[in-house]
């Protein structure tokens, strides 16, 4: 099985919407809730899509805004205007 990538956020309204968007777009994602933070984990890769986040937030969302809620992540990053992807290349 592919190695896991993960991304963790501080708990907040915004990050709840981001996590929901991740779950909608990435089947097989698991959620690990810790005090004041939430970590989402998925084998191989994980993509945050701008449009899906916007649907869950009900407003425009610039992916660079992730900076505000993010705590940590693993994997290689590829960022465009529409998607933010974490992946291991193996």
């Amino acid at each position, binding site marked *: 099985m592919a*190695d*896991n*990538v993960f991304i*963790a956020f*501080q708990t907040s309204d915004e990050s709840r919407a981001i996590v929901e968007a991740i779950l909608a777009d990435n089947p097989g994602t698991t959620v690990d809730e*810790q*005090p*004041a*933070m939430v970590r989402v984990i998925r084998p191989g890769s994980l993509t945050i899509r701008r449009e899906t986040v916007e649907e869950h937030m009900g407003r425009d969302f610039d992916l*660079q*805004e992730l*900076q*505000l*809620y*993010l*705590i*940590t*992540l*693993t*994997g*290689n*990053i590829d*960022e*465009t*205007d529409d998607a933010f992807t974490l992946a*291991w*290349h*193996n």
Partner: protein
Amino acid sequence: MDMPTTTKKKLGIKEKYALMTRGLDWETTYQPMDKVFPYAKFEGIKIHDWDKWEDPFRLTMDAYWKYQAEKERKLYAILDAFNQNNGHLGITDARYVNTLKLFLNGISPLEYMAHRGFAHVGRQFPGVGPRVACQMQSLDEMRHAQTQIHSMSNYNRYYNGFHSFPEMLQKVWYMSVPRSFFDDAYTSGPFEFMVAIGFSFEYVLTNLLFVPFVSGAAYNGDMGAMTFGFSAQSDEARHMTLGLECIRFMLEQDPDNIPIVQKWIDKWTWRGIRVLTLVAMMMDYMLPKKVMSWKEAWEIYFEENATALFNDLARYGIKMPDCAKQALIDKEHISHQAWATFYQYSAVSNFHGWLPSSEEMDWLSAKYPDTFDQYYRPRFEHWAKEAAEGRRFYNTTLPQLCQVCQIPMIFTEPTDPTQICYRESEFEGDKYHFCSDHCKNIFDDEPEKYVQAWLPVQQIYQGNCFMPDADPTKPDFNPIEEVLRYYNLQNGRDNMDYVGSEDEANFRAWRQTSTQN
């Protein structure tokens, strides 16, 4: 020149960033490039094309200012509220505050060093992409140093042990562990610095400090620490990515770089692991309410993470460092070994020591079923009995230190947890001692560097850790008191047992005033 100003296509983030950043630099001709960038080649790393650098996060300065200012607004609003509402009285127990003392004294000044180190590398790399990334990291690290100081400033007003953190980092015995780690990285060449900090400090160290430990701070009611911790780590996500990108870039530029990078990864993984000993003890012994054990945190944030990472790097021929095997064994031991050390040397430390309660020992037994009861419980129970009979054990003889990691030689043989691990090398007629094969290897590779180590024990015995007015020839000269005076450590307030301390008494009294008139 034809300049249509209308119907411009909207630029994507990658194109926009490329235009905004790439191409700003140029090949100098009035001065030779080797003179402009004098440190780029001596480490032996070969770079053929700096433009092959992939920018991991594409933040232009305007976006940087916008998002970082937003983070700062949130952070200081929470801090102000926490301070105004006496948030420090809402923590689980004032023992917890001792983790913050370690943090402010031992970690925050390293953030400052990271800022200076990245300023240096951000000046010296000949490529514009990595330079801009390093410069932003330099600025972020200043943020971390200052937000940590500002967060803990309020604790300094009410608790002991915080009051002289920059001085203590430069003087107090155990502080030479984190400090020498950073001095080592800073004095290395710019590429090694990137592996040391971008990989070891960010990927190995801060992830374990700022994620599970800070989550623990939140669990213990410290919204201040939680806020600066998580907020800092959001920058670290960028930094880890930069470190990995730098490693990948070196590996892709020239096959000759691979063995050099491997050697640095081996060295710095181990340097980072040794410094983490302090964090291990913070998690297992110093958080009154515990989120997860050190061992569990290590498994999630190092083992799982590092395995994935090294699988990813395998295509370049990079292997998991050998020291990871020893770390796999050590995760069962280091928190106990470290806490036992600080307990016995707490007369000369700037935070308090205490023994785990019987409930805490049961928790440790459950988390460490293969080691705690067999090797460590007897030690703590013996000390508890001694203390109860009025013989609280304070060790007053100075310990032997490892020449490289500078931790007292407390670590045991990987094959025998009852045997201290001794390693030795000779260089230019002098003997040098190490806690492990890995520290010895680091020394043997660059002995000229590590013979310079400012080892606190050696310095005390040379007479270099007294104030200028101290007179060792006087009959009533008390060397320990004089060393504490040099440390600016307030004897009887900053040090010794938590039980009976001013911190304990004040916390209890202040909490009581909140329930009575």
